[in-house]
């Protein structure tokens, strides 16, 4: 036994990989011919190949399972797939009617939100700055210079409010004496 073990330990270094491929039939014609010529004269490689022929098929022997196992397996698997299919088709059905109008509506809403956001961000939209034109007398509205004067008066009127907002940082000439 020991003697045999020692003799079987290696095949020829250059041929071992080729012998594995030869066993599985995964080599080319040329490689096959080369191996066949070699094993005619090499006992170690012959034994190596014999070992593969003895061991490997036995390792690959599949366990025999009864038909009932495969029937059950099939039923269970297709049931799981059908459940998955039903789930996905439920969502598809739910979303299907929305598809026709969802995209334009979402696009319009997005543009509107973006526009409002830009307006607020740039400070271009200040409701307090909008003066109701209805309160301005018609005579002033017709005269552009008077309208300008009217607007500057508004600014002067709002100076105390601006100073109050500014708090302690108000200009010295506006501080009350004492």
């Amino acid at each position, binding site marked *: 036994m020991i003697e045999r*073990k020692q003799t079987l330990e290696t095949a020829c270094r250059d041929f071992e990989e080729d012998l*594995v491929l030869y*066993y599985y039939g995964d080599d080319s014609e040329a490689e096959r011919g080369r191996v066949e010529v070699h094993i005619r004269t090499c006992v170690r490689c012959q034994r190596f190949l014999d*070992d593969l022929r003895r061991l490997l098929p036995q390792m690959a022997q*599949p*366990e025999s399972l009864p038909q009932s196992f495969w029937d059950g397996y099939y039923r*269970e698997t297709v049931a*799981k797939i059908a459940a998955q299919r039903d789930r996905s088709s439920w969502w598809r059905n739910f979303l299907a009617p929305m598809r026709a109008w969802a995209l334009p509506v979402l696009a319009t809403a997005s543009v509107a939100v973006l526009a409002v956001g830009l307006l607020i961000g740039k400070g271009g939209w200040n409701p307090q700055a909008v003066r109701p034109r209805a309160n301005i007398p018609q005579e002033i509205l017709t005269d552009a210079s008077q309208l300008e004067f009217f607007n500057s008066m508004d600014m002067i009127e709002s100076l105390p409010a601006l100073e109050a907002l500014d708090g302690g940082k108000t200009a010295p000439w506006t501080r009350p004496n004492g």
Partner: protein
Amino acid sequence: MSRQPSMDNQKSQELRDEELVALCQQGQGQYFDFLVRKYMEKAFRIAFDFTRDKEEAKDLSQEAFLRAFSRIKQFDGRSSFYTWFYRLVVNLCLDYARRKGRVRWQSLDAIVEENPERAELADTSSAPDGQAMAGEAKRRAQSTLKSMPDKQRTAFLLRNHQGLPIADIAKVMKTTEATVRVYLHRAVAALRQSLLEFV
């Protein structure tokens, strides 16, 4: 069964994989059942080779079918369906092995006890000594397979147990044929080495 395709079953079974896949991609998912029928045994056996556990093998192979079904529209036909599907099964098995930290090897002796007529390695001897030796050989083979790097084990199992050509194994493993040959050689050499005293 309402899930079965309305088309005649016999005709549907004659459809090639690409035709079945195309039907599924067109929304006729019921045709996937034929692919299940065709590949369930192979899928289960690959998973069993990796896990050595029937329940785990069943769960993993069924999960592979579910994934294949949910991703069927992503299948672009650049490889064959079975190569694509084998990759899913193998990846799930490798993920499972990593998740578990080790592959749980159900004793092959337990399988032999269930099916005494199907003993595996070196089962030609009926003498008690021979049977003991066969059991030890099986354990040794399992241990060697278990200790192999994932890639060597995958190459070996797909070639030796599943009979896949090296070109297909290379596609499944997303590597070159030359690399698969190296993995296969290393795996076989390691197994032979570990089983020398039993041959």
